[in-house]
Structures are given as structure tokens and as C-alpha cells.
């Protein structure tokens, strides 16, 4: 008898307690996040997850969006499209999220596009592949810069320097082949002539053969397109061979790791890059400066390491979402419509202006040209 009473009593207390909290706060707005926190693309997913969490904590600390807290539900895709699809389904069906940010990789993003399109949930991808938003999909946006913009930025710089005979050396993986396609496709438009077109394997440790061939080819500059560690080997080999041609890299190496790996050989190399790494050197008139400094100092304070471009993509996605919810409320359809109206949103990756025809939102001003000087980045004006 007593034990039955106790059970009833505690159930009653529990009910009162729960009902009390429910009555006090409006339910949080749920935002789903798919990031490759582990696996081969963890270098993308980890800073993205960290950044998204940091942004959500900051928003909630400041009182949430229109008085309602945000709740971030992160699922690790491990860089596996099958897991990304499972995760997207779970977020939409079980958690009933209002919007999804991520995934980190182009493969994961392409895999979940049919899922979000069918369910009618806005997606802001943090991956770079241009096919994510070309052709435009109704519910899909993205924040990472297209490779074509980086190519346009380098070509514009070369044009100004009156260099038009090029050698390109690209890695034979997804990033390198996309870069190679863009470099070749846009060459004519900027009056560039590609005299040598060489490739190397992602695991190659010696590129002297390719570079020797390039030297004999008569180019005025070398453009290398890859992600670490290959470009560092290229930089070292260029120095070893005593090649005096200006060397350009892609935005794929715009992290301190590259300077560390290439050592002295990094000196004088130029590359197109997002503004994060030169946030402090930007002129005050730069519209992105405020967002950049807030992200860089915030990230350093919370995680004790430098924030990077990848985290920046998540920052942009989260902030774009926040301002859309602020204006339009938390229904998925209203968020989508509001996102499409985004104009001149100064974020980390660039200044975004979405429209019905453009869900990538950036132009080549998203990149600046930086040069490596004394082991650090220097903004080239």
C-alpha cells in the first residue's frame, strides 16, 4: 500500500515539475546538422561542428531567436553518403527539425539533396562542389565558395601582372580534377595559354619529374592545385630545382599547416583565399571585417586554436539561418523563402546574395590574393 502511494506521489511530483518547465519556456527551434566529424573528411567536419555549436551557444546566451532557444542536433556522417542519408531522414522524421546545415562534403550533400527536396526542408550545405546548387534546387543553398571563383581570382591577378603563359600541375583526385577543369575552361576568357598540363598522385612524394618538364615548357608561372601534403612537396621541389617562376597554389592549402610543411620553400607563394586568414589585415571598409573578427576571436577563446575557412562555412550557414528565422519564423517553407531573399549578408566566406537563380550567393570577390611572407599570410592589394 505504502509503496503504491509512493509511486503515485513521485509520478505526481514529476508531472508537476515537467508541466512547470513546459509552461515557462516556448519549445526550442530545432536545427539539424550533418557533419563528417570523424572519418577521412574530419578536417572539415570537426571545425564545422565546433563552430555551429559555438554560434548556437552564443545566440542562446543572448536570449535566442525571438525569445526562443535554438537546439542544434548534430549527426556524424563520417564522410559516408549512406550515413548522411540516414542522418537526414532521422533529423526530418524523428527530430522534426526546421532546417539542416551541412553536410561537409560534396558527396554527402549530393546524396541527401533528394531527401530534403522531397521532405521540403531547407538545406544549407557547407561543401564546395558547384553541382550542389547548379542547377538550382528549390530547397538547397550553400556557403562554401566554388572553385571557379578561385580560378577567376588568380587569372584576374595574372592578367594585371601581364602573365599569360601558364603551367598547371594538379592532383589526380576530386579537388584537383575539378580545379583542372576550371583552369582549362576559363583560360581563354582571360587570355591565358596553358603550355604544360601535368598531374600528380595524392600520395606522391616527389614531383621533380613533372616540374622539370614544366621548366622546359616555357611557362611564365606555375599554378598547382591540390590539398596538403602534395603542394608542400611541389613547393619544396620547385626550390630544390631552382625554378624561379612565380608559384601559385589553390585555396586548398590556405591553412598554417601548409606553411609548416613547406618550410622555407613556402616563401613568396601566392594563392587565392577566403578572408579568414588575413582578417586582421583587412581595411576597415571591408564589409566582412566585423563578422570575421567576431568569428576568429570567438573561436580562439572557446577552442584555443585558430578558426579556419571550414568552420567559417558553418558560421555562415548558421547565421544565414538565424537571420531568416528572425524575419520569417520557424516553418521550413518560410525559412526557405526568406533565405532566397538574402541580400548582401557579410559573412566569413564572402558577401552572400541569394536569388531564385543563384543559391550559391557569392562572386569572385569572395577571394583575396594572399602571399606567404616570413612564414605568415600577407594580403596582396
Amino acid at each position, binding site marked *: 500500500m505504502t509503496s503504491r502511494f509512493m509511486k503515485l506521489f513521485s509520478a505526481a511530483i514529476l508531472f508537476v515539475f515537467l508541466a512547470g518547465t513546459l509552461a515557462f519556456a516556448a519549445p526550442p527551434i530545432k536545427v539539424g546538422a550533418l557533419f563528417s566529424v570523424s572519418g577521412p573528411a574530419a578536417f572539415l567536419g570537426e571545425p564545422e561542428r565546433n563552430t555551429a555549436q559555438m554560434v548556437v551557444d552564443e545566440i542562446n546566451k543572448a536570449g535566442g531567436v525571438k525569445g526562443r532557444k535554438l537546439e542544434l542536433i548534430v549527426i556524424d556522417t563520417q564522410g559516408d553518403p549512406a550515413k548522411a542519408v540516414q542522418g537526414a531522414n532521422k533529423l526530418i522524421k524523428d527530430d522534426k527539425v526546421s532546417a539542416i546545415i551541412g553536410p561537409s562534403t560534396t558527396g554527402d550533400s549530393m546524396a541527401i539533396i533528394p531527401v530534403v527536396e522531397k521532405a521540403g526542408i531547407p538545406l544549407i550545405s557547407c561543401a564546395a562542389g558547384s553541382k550542389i546548387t547548379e542547377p538550382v534546387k528549390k530547397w538547397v543553398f550553400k556557403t562554401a565558395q566554388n572553385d571557379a571563383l578561385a580560378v577567376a581570382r588568380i587569372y584576374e591577378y595574372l592578367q594585371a601582372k601581364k602573365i599569360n603563359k601558364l603551367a598547371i600541375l594538379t592532383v589526380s583526385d576530386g579537388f584537383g580534377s575539378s580545379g583542372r577543369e576550371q583552369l582549362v575552361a576559363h583560360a581563354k576568357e582571360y587570355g591565358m595559354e596553358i603550355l604544360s598540363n601535368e598531374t600528380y598522385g595524392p600520395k606522391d612524394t616527389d614531383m621533380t619529374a613533372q616540374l*622539370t618538364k614544366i621548366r622546359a615548357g616555357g611557362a611564365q608561372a606555375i599554378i598547382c592545385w591540390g590539398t596538403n601534403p602534395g603542394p608542400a*612537396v611541389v613547393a619544396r621541389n620547385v626550390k630544390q630545382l631552382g625554378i624561379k617562376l612565380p608559384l601559385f597554389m589553390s585555396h586548398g592549402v590556405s591553412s598554417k599547416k601548409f606553411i609548416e610543411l613547406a618550410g622555407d620553400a613556402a616563401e613568396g607563394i601566392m594563392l587565392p583565399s577566403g578572408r579568414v586568414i588575413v582578417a586582421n589585415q583587412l581595411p576597415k571598409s571591408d564589409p566582412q571585417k566585423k563578422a570575421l573578427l567576431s568569428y576568429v576571436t570567438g573561436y580562439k577563446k572557446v577552442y584555443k586554436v585558430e578558426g579556419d575557412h571550414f568552420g567559417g562555412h558553418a558560421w555562415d550557414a548558421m547565421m544565414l539561418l538565424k537571420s531568416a528565422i528572425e524575419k520569417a519564423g520557424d516553418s521550413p517553407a518560410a525559412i526557405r523563402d526568406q533565405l532566397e531573399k538574402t541580400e548582401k549578408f557579410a559573412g566569413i566566406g564572402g558577401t552572400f546574395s541569394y536569388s531564385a537563380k543563384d543559391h550559391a550567393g557569392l562572386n569572385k570577390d569572395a577571394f583575396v590574393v594572399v602571399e606567404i611572407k616570413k612564414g605568415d599570410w600577407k594580403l596582396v592589394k
Partner: protein
Amino acid sequence: MDNTSQFVQYVLSGLSNGAIYALIGFGFAIIHNATGIINFAQGEFVMLGGMSTIFILSFLSLPLVPAIVLAIIFSTLVGIIFERLAIRPLKNATPLSLVIITIGASIFIRGAAMLIWGKDTHALPAFSGNNPLYISGATIMPQHLWIFGITILIIIANKLFFSYSIIGKAMRACAYNAHAASLVGIDVKIMVLLSFVVSAAIGSMAGIIIAPLTMTAYDVGVMLGIKGFCAVIIGGMSSGLGTVLGGLLIGLLESLGAGYISASYKDAVAFIILLLILFIRPEGLFKQKETQRV
């Protein structure tokens, strides 16, 4: 730059890569010559050498030489543990099962390295500076001279050890016939263990001297291991000149192929040679047939 110096550059690049392949090939040869198995975890010793040197340098902040010595000792210990835990307990296993075990061990060591040291690539400082040396219009790094020098030293030491020392001869005896060797009083188990010690030490040495040039990460062992394997197959599993020539041949063909045909086929070169050798002369290019030796 004229055609001659271009050619000289291809040859120099090829030879320097070839020397690396040869050195890694040695590790395969030594274990094979003592136990009759092919140790596919050989590439992981190469990785362990480079990665543990970098780890010791940055975390214990020791000077380079003690760091290298410690790294070799560490990799050798891993070799000993590997032999004791994974090879010795299987008393009557066929060579094929042992080979498969070594593949498993290589995946395990690689995974452990990834968890401990992360996925980043690291660079080791060069032993004697980064200023290239010029040889008739072509260039070479001082580090390449270290690689050539250490490879030559190891070849000589190997030759002396296996041909003249009693332990080296005992190890060879075990490879020819373990049962007969044990009958004449050779402790086969010790000899097998010793072969793992020597090849882990050589493998890690190779990993350390190439790390300033090629940089290192948890997964460098795979490709380097395969290239070393090709070198030793061409050399007919000898721990002598055959493997050196095999390594240099692969290095040269890779470099000339990348220079005059296309760099896209660089890795394919080694594998095409490997297949050709296995089809046409499985005993290796430079080795006489086994039956003639006995």
C-alpha cells in the same frame, strides 16, 4: 634548360627515389630470408620510424640524433612485440596464413598510429640544410646524399652480416630448412625474432631518412611498402645488390616515364614491372634459379 640537363634531372630524381625503394625492399628480404614469409607490415615500420622521430622531437624536445636512436629502438620494439604476439604463437601455420597475419598487423599498426598521432602530415627538418647541390645543370638535395650513403652502408653491413657472421649464417640456414637448422642446434625462434628486429630497424631507419624529403603521415607506409616490395621482387628476394638494382630500376623508370610520357602513369610503372617480373621471371631479374644453388 637544355635536353641533357633535363635528362640528368630525371635520372637523379629517379635514382634518389630508387634508393629509398631499395632500402625498404631490404626489410622484406631479411624477414623472407629468415622465415620464408613476406611481411606486408614492412611499410608500417617505415611509417613508425618517421612518425615517432617527429613525435619525440616535438614532445620530448630532444636533439635530432638521440631522437632518431630512440625512434629506431621504439620501432624495433614494435617489431619484437609483433613477432611475439602475432607470429610466434602460430607454431605450424603455413606461410600463406602468416602472410595474411602480417597484412592484418599492418592495418592494425596504421590504425593505432592514426589514433595516437592523428591524420596530419608532418615534416622532419633536413639533416644538413635545404640548399640544393648542382650537378651538371640538375639539382639534388643534401638529404639525398644521406639516403645514398645510408643505403650503401646498410648493403655492406648486410652482406657482411649474412655471409660472414655466425648469426647471419644461422638465420639463412633457418630459411632454407628450419627443421634441419634446429637439428644442428640453431634456435630457430631466436633467429626469426632477430630477423624482425633487423628488418624493423632498417625499415624505421629508411622512414627517418626520407621524412625530411617526402614528409610523413600515418598512411605513408602503404605506397612505400608496395614500392619496396616491387624492388625486392625484381631483386629476387635477395638482401644484396639485386634489391638495390631493383629499387633503382623502378625509381628510374618512374621518373623517366613521368618526364617523357605522362606523370599520370607514374605509379602504374612499378606495378607493370611487378606483374611482368612475376609472369616472366618469378625468381627475380638478377637471381639464379634456386635449384642451382643447392
